[in-house]
């Protein structure tokens, strides 16, 4: 058993850490306009990431990407999350993001959607959540009914990130309500300029993002836009969601690490009643607990990613990572905010941003309760 990262991943980690320390952290409080990266900074950062070959990290080499292992990606996500320079969600600086569902496309679909996406000519969004079907895709009510060579889609999708900037959507639809998530859900590509598609609302969130509501009203889509066979959508979508949970984990350990760095430094500098905060047990315990929990989360995230790279099923590890790492990073940020006192509340430091953003992660892409529910199901199944 070897707990050391492979040498090349240690080197990748060191390289990205240096990039974050030298290029991102010095400008992190000025390079975003709200949650969006200012164009001049995007250009500057992307020139570097392209040069470093950190481009399309998760895209397989056969499609011109870096084909980086999931463990490698987790390491990059964690390092990048040490800075608030980049948007915490959506369009980062490593090229177009391609959800794995798109590799299941046939060649004709790839020509129309995948390749333009990889060439950055088109942008995509992923539409699954509905007003009454968040973590429970089986309750999905957006229906697609076959009509000759077309599907007719009717329904509402809510909290869809980047829908307002997307050229097409990968929409999860119910093709057989009686089957639910066991073969009743399909994935279909819908052009956003389809007359049957309307963005009807944008929700202002505490993280600054404005996810959209999309209404499909007799939206007619060629049957050739279905990815895979009818009923395969849930299976195809799950793969992405599994990786997404590890993305949460990677981000969580990066945020916690930087927060601890900041907390420890500040505790040594700040003197109250004649002593640095670092000499107070109340502060020491906060740092000790944070450091311990970060260590545990890091091992969990690495292990789940490693398991995925071995071709093994890591769904359970993924659920545990999401609930543990996200909650851990929120706790750590909360403690570090407390250590900083009033200064921590200002928008001059990244802490309040993390506080809002990491808190949101206990809800988005699978609420903590849902993660616990599926973990419990797994535990109970094991012990009859």
């Amino acid at each position, binding site marked *: 058993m070897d707990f050391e990262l492979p*040498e*090349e991943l*240690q*080197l*990748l980690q*060191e*390289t990205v850490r*240096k*990039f974050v320390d030298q290029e991102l952290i010095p400008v992190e409080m000025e390079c975003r306009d709200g949650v969006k990266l200012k164009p001049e900074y995007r250009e500057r950062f992307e020139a*570097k990431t392209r*040069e*470093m*070959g*950190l481009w399309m990290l998760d895209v397989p080499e056969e499609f011109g990407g*870096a084909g*980086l292992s999931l463990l490698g990606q987790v390491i990059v996500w964690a390092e990048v999350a040490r800075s608030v320079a980049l948007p915490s969600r959506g369009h980062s600086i490593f090229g177009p993001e391609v959800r794995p569902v798109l590799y299941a496309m046939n060649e004709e679909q790839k020509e129309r959607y995948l390749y333009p996406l990889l060439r950055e000519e088109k942008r995509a969004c992923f539409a699954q959540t509905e007003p009454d079907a968040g973590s429970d895709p089986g309750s999905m009510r957006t229906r697609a009914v076959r009509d000759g060579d077309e599907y007719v889609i009717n329904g509402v999708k809510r909290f869809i990130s980047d829908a307002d900037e997307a050229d097409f959507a990968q929409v999860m639809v119910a093709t057989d309500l009686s089957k639910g998530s066991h073969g009743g859900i399909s994935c279909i590509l819908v052009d956003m300029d389809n007359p049957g598609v309307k963005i009807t609302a944008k929700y202002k969130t505490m993280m600054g993002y404005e996810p959209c509501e999309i209404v499909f009203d007799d939206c007619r889509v060629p049957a050739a836009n279905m990815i895979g066979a009818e009923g395969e959508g849930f299976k195809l979508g799950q793969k992405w969601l599994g990786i997404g949970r590890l993305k949460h984990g990677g981000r969580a350990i990066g945020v916690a690490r930087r927060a601890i760095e900041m907390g420890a430094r500040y505790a040594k500098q700040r003197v109250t009643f004649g002593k640095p905060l670092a000499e107070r047990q109340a502060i020491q315990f906060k740092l000790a607990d944070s450091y311990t929990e970060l260590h545990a989360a890091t091992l969990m995230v690495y292990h789940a990613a490693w398991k995925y790279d071995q071709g093994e099923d890591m769904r359970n590890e993924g659920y545990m990572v999401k609930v543990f790492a996200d909650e851990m990073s929120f706790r750590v940020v909360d403690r570090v905010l407390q250590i900083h006192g009033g200064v921590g509340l200002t928008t001059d430091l990244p802490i309040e941003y993390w506080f809002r953003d990491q808190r949101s992660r206990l809800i988005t892409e699978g609420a903590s309760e849902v993660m616990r529910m599926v973990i419990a199901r797994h535990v109970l199944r094991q012990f009859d």
Partner: protein
Amino acid sequence: MDIVVCGKIIPASTVTIEIDPATKRMIRKGVAHELDPAAASAVEEGLRLMEKVGGTLTLVTMGFNEITIGIRTALAMGATSAVHIFDDALAGSDTLATAKALAAAIGKRPFDLIICGTESSDSYSGIVPGQVARLLGVPPVTFATEMAVEGNTLTVKRQSESGYDVVEADLPALVTVTSGINEPRYPQLKGIMAAKRKEILQYSAADLGLAAGDVGEAGAREKVLEVGRPPRRDVGEVVEDDGEGGKRIADFLAEAKVI
């Protein structure tokens, strides 16, 4: 052209350096290491030259096992191979013993140019490059802020106290480059993945024909007598701005002949 970069792998910038009170040496074992920024500048300069004229670039370095990551960084940046001098008998070597080991390793293969940083960023002696040049019998050209190779001639713009000198030397030669000479590249992902397949040749003291008495603690002619913290600086003069603050600072700077 066969280029050798002679550089050091040092405790990472995130490590708080500690001194062993018994040996008065920096504690290097068990701490994270990285390619010295001074060495990274030397590698970068060598790579630019190699990309222009072709050839090879070999990093030659000495240290414990912990330094492998720094060697791989140089390989990931684009160095073609590396030589790692690694032997417990070398621990505690002074600058001359270090130079002997480096020169012996470099001398095992033909070379055209040796590039070093002006001094390492951990111990800052700045002596080793000159000693290596002497031991190999090549001219040392130091403090380069720009360098170029044309045919068999190395031309260097050399920083001096009053400005700069332009110096020429025939190859083979040794040049030390200042940290401002370039901005070292980040290793590319492809380079990182390729680095593990590149050769790292390991030499022991015996491989280099060095007797135990010549190197390490036993062979050291320098001895560190004492290590201490720098004295605390006084607060200096505090200027309260009563409307005349700017003038008083300007006067102070004029008096110090800064302006």
